[in-house]
């Protein structure tokens, strides 16, 4: 636990700094209230509709691919640390895992999931 104590101290200092900025800017600045002033900024044209517009499905696809490949990275770290004591068997067994993911990546690529514009 004592290894983590400096981390919490550092977090406290960081949090204090961030809160100081936040409180400072909330208190020091002037406050204007006006109908025009409160409009969302849209380069001078009038804003229509809410913020809930339909989003491209590509963003969801990217997010899912991220989850797949980032978990892979997390899985690779402990293997990387112990790699040199594992030797060939470690490399071969990890290659089995990696090849499944590479096949997945190639499949995504061929299906056009990595193409932003067709």
């Amino acid at each position: 636990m004592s290894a983590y104590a400096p981390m919490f101290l550092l977090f406290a200092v960081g949090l204090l700094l961030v809160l100081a900025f936040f409180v400072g800017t909330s208190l020091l600045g002037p406050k204007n209230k006006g109908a025009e002033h409160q409009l969302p900024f849209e380069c001078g044209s009038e804003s229509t509709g809410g913020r809930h517009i339909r989003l491209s499905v590509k963003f969801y696809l990217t997010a899912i691919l991220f989850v797949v490949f980032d978990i892979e990275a997390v899985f690779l770290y402990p293997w990387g640390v112990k790699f040199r004591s594992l030797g060939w068997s470690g490399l071969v067994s990890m290659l089995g895992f990696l090849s499944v993911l590479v096949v997945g990546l190639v499949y995504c690529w061929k299906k056009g999931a990595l193409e932003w514009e067709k």
Partner: protein
Amino acid sequence: MTLSSIIWTVVKILIVVGFIVNLSAILTWMERRQSAMMQDRVGPNRAEITVFGYKIRLFGLLYPIADAVKMFTKEDFIPPNADKVLHSLAPMLSLFPPLVVLGVVPFTDTLCLDNLHEVVQKNGVVASNWHFFSSWIEQPSCSLPGAKNFIDGCCVIGCQTAGVVHQPWAEHFGTCPANVAPGMIGAIHMQVIDFNPGVLYVFALAGMGIVGASIAGWSSDNKFSLMGGLRAASQLVSYEVAMGLSIVGAIMVYGTIRLDEMTRWQGDHVWGVFVQPLAFILFLTAAIAETKRAPFDLPEGESEIVAGYLVEYSGMKFGMFYMGEFIEIATSSALLVAIFLGGYNMPFLHRDGITIAVGDAVVWKQHIPHILVILMQAGAFFGKIFVLCWFQMFVRWTLPRFRYDQLMKLGWRMLLPAALANIFLTGVILIAFDRTGTEFQERMGVVGDFVNLATAIAITFVQLWIVIGFFGSTQPAIRRNAFNKRARSAGEIVEKALAS
């Protein structure tokens, strides 16, 4: 925790946080001046304060202070339809992680306080005799000839089986010579958080920055913001993958995820950039993408979506995003330095001083007091960070912005396969290397020494170049004159054309 360890932790926190906050302020100045230099103009230099009747300008260094004053006294605007809690939380979430990320990065070697003083009894009172400038720490001597070579760190603990990789050297090398006497303070590890997660801590916090940018976009009740937030989220997660996978190769070589052990490995052998060049380039590219600056500034993309997720922010809340961005430059540079560019190590600078040696032949040896070695290492670490920050500014003002499909293509179709290939290649080479005999590994150790020599020479030249460029250059004047001349001749051409 004892009182002295708490005090030391506070001192280290002040060093780390103070360094990056001040560096980010200097970087805002540097960006303005450097962009001015690259665009052949003088840049902002007129902010001045009057002290006792003297007007002080300091080459525009007062601009960061003026910025801070202005941002704090500007209206703090929250759009009426915005999600007020999230809108306020977002800038905090994007400033907080870069502030604390440097906690696991070591900025000098272990400081051995015990080595700096001896406890003496004076008239029955225990007192310390401090000798800062006369004590050094002896390097552990090698019993095995040529064992201090490319891969194994065996020599340090004197084990006789070269080629077999153990980790215990890492525990021994950073520790101080045992000196058990009453009143001893101990060894100070010069990183704030001395724990095992290391790189995982860095990535966990770096991931939080994505949340800040995307909820800033979502909560602002503005379509530009929403698009900017989406772009930010999508871009950051894409490059997070490449970043995370690119250092797996480095982890395989170093055999650890602790940044202090990585740095020590590089001090024993060669800098990581020489054993993992591809990983270095991938990590650098991904790190620049993670800072959301040109050529990767699509989330802000001022010609397309005004300022992206920053549209509805003003005052210091905008300033927090802005500051977070500059701190991210500094932290990503620090990570690159610690993982690939030797951290606080300089070639041939060991714990006992400078030893220029190639193979078994010692060319030159000079003892340096421990405290000076520590200071030189800190200077090396912060200097390297500064050079990398300069490089990122250089890239930012050189390359134009990518298109979004190019960005995704670079992340998923180039960096990701390259990172996977790097893991495979590193694995094969490492296993092949571990299978080779002692003789070959000794030879590689000599190659490593030559690489260190080349690095040392290159560093000397870069330093000379910086010094000459800073103090001895007449270039801007020459360039201005040439520019004026061109402008005059262009004016004459126009005048002639008008006259005819």
